[in-house]
């Protein structure tokens, strides 16, 4: 499966992709091909999907049920209708893009890959050596469905230490689209516009936290936290609960803990953790535990081992945790308080899930826009942004779309 090229093969692939770009396919036809491909990918028993998930599970140690549910969430918005509606709105982009994908998050980058294919671009994709499987399988199924469209998508894998290959990718393409915090790509200059690493959060309004929907909201947010083992930019790290008394937020934290525990039995966490990850998780828990012993307003609700943890940290501002099912719950008095808690993370927040309605949602939209949130989601839907998701602030979407 590992498709390690030489620099010459990268250059040759780029020449072949440029030739394919010169033979355009109408966007509605591309949408039709992709809809067929993605409909198959949404079927859990689809053989290439099974192959990819099995390999990813072996490689990253994530459980197959977790990977299946995560991939379901990514693929959910890619319906035939959504693709057909998007096709007439794309710009004509006859250019060659180099994608540098992040590891750990299966299917991350699919939104941009699909947009670029609809727009007529050619794509040379470098996957992370930690997760080289999904896009390789995906490219094969595109080629199987339509050889012309398949000719516009090539996938290779190499480690970030192979600076020669990354430089060859940059030289061979019109611009690079890196994901995450790749220091190798960051060292390159010119033609690089990336999706930096970001984090997400959730907000539960007072009426939701106090009312009947609280348990269901907790279940939905537990899913948002758990998918992708919380390693994606759309994974929430903190839940802010609007409340008159902090005990209400603490109660919601317990409810979220129950939901995390239930989900862990259905979507098992990795049986083994890397030492560094385990140490980070241990550090978070021990900090919470000792703060509680010191009578700070902190409570820990946790599963066995390091499987999952909910930390009620009453007064905390938004900051990331180590991922791997570690989420904090904090109390807020009102939306102004929320604004203050998010201020330090301004420009770093990708998505906010909001459980609430009416006026609150209107105000949340204003607040989200002010801090640069790209996706305001319902709880449970954070990992399924629409095809027109303004990922990373929308710079890529704006290049690919002519009519908003």
């Amino acid at each position, binding site marked *: 499966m590992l498709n390690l090229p030489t620099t010459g093969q990268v250059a040759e692939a780029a020449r072949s992709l440029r030739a394919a770009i010169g033979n355009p396919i109408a966007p509605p036809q591309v949408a039709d091909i992709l809809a067929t491909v993605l409909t198959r990918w949404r079927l859990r028993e689809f053989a290439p999907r099974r192959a990819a998930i099995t390999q990813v599970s072996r490689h990253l140690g994530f459980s197959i049920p977790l990977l299946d549910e995560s991939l379901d969430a990514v693929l959910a918005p890619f319906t035939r209708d959504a693709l057909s509606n998007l096709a007439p709105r794309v710009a004509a982009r006859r250019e060659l893009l180099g994608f540098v994908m992040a590891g750990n998050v299966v299917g991350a980058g699919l939104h941009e890959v699909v947009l670029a294919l609809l727009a007529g671009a050619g794509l040379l994709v470098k996957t992370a050596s930690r997760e080289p499987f999904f896009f390789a399988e995906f490219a094969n199924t595109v080629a199987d469905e339509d050889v012309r469209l398949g000719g516009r998508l090539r996938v290779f894998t190499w480690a970030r230490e192979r600076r020669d290959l990354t430089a060859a990718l940059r030289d061979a393409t019109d611009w690079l689209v890196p994901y995450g915090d790749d220091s190798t790509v960051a060292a390159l200059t010119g033609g690089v516009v990336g999706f930096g690493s970001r984090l997400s959060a959730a907000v539960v309004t007072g009426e939701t936290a106090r009312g009947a929907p609280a348990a269901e909201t907790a279940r939905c947010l537990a899913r948002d936290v758990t998918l992708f083992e919380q390693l994606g930019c759309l994974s929430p790290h903190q839940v802010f609960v609007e409340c008159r008394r902090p005990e209400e937020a603490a109660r919601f934290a317990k409810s979220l803990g129950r939901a995390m525990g239930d989900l862990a039995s259905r979507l098992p966490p990795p049986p083994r953790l890397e030492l560094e990850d*385990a140490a980070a998780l241990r550090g978070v828990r021990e900090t919470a535990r000792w703060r509680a012993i010191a009578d700070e307003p902190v409570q820990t609700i946790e599963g066995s081992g390091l499987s999952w943890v909910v930390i009620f940290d009453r007064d905390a501002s938004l900051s990331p945790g180590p991922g791997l099912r570690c989420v904090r719950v904090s109390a807020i008095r009102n939306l102004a308080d929320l604004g203050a808690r998010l201020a330090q993370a301004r420009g770093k927040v990708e998505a906010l899930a909001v459980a609430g309605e009416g006026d609150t949602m209107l105000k949340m939209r204003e607040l989200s826009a002010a801090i640069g949130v790209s996706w305001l989601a319902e709880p449970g839907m954070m990992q399924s942004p629409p095809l027109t998701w303004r990922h990373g602030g929308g710079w890529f979407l704006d290049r690919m779309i002519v009519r908003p």
Partner: protein
Amino acid sequence: MAIQEQVLSYIHRPDPERFDSLAIDVFRHQYVSVPAYRRYCEGLGISPKRLSSAGEIPMVSTVAFKYTSLCAPASEKSPRALTFLTSGTTGGRDRRGRHVVARPDIYRASAVAHLRAMMFPDGAQMRMLAIHPTRDRMPESSLSTMITWCIEEFGQAPSLCVADRLSLDESEALGFLERAASDRAAVCILGTTAAYAAIFRKLGAHGDAIVMPPRSRMMDTGGVKGQATPLDAREVVALARELLGIDPACVINEYGMTELCSQLYDATEFNAPGAAAGERVKLAPPWMRPVAIDPVSLRHLPDGTRGLLGFIDLANVDSVSAVLTEDFGIVDRGRVRVLGRAIAGGPRGCALSVAQFERAARA
């Protein structure tokens, strides 16, 4: 005999066969006398009655020292108690850890005994150069206190401290070393690796080297912490030889922390003849047991396995003896390889890591 006196007696006359039973007795004492530790143990469902081996003593993370007192309330108020603070720089966290040592005499006995074994196995007394503030200049620093004790126990006039909490006078340090070289008097230099880096830079900039007399030695500690351009352990040894003429076997790195009253030192041909072949390892004193800990289960790992370093330090008798650090390491037959700090949040997918966020927040 009070538990403190038992520990002191053990430091003076170690008996490995007694370590486990004494460690359990120390734990019982701490469970009863340190309320926060008792709460922690109760939370884990561990009581001294059910403890069958020293390996089951609950380890307290060093982060605990940032949030709560881990000293018996009565001892904390003792006029002879000393309070030490961590530097608070690690990982950008602003809260400083606090370790109250109710019996500084036990701390001193531990520090001095292992200094004698690892830095002065030849019984030498010599001139001392402190390139880290001494206790009078930085009383909250455990390293400052240890350096002061080292000077008092093993120093010979003239000795000099060339640092305060804000600065290091490299020129004065070099002047002291040049005079000692001219007097053919051996010197022991004591300080952080960062301070050595500054001294080496100054010497290197002059293009000079000082050839220190035989038996000169140096103790560095802290590793890359506080260094703009990190100097690793091998570079320290190489530069000490090249710029100061100090025998590599006498360049000894110390591993210690505010939360522990005992320290580890590099084993070299100087202090552990025949036992120091190959990669450098560190040795703890007989009253401290190093272990590698599995961060998932918090159980002790088998020899040779990478884990979080933990220690059972009997000299911590009036706080907590079982301390879990944030450093990775390997323990093999009591020898420790320190592999560096566990960084919160390594490479991620597209999620923002803790390290990235803290860097951005500091910028």
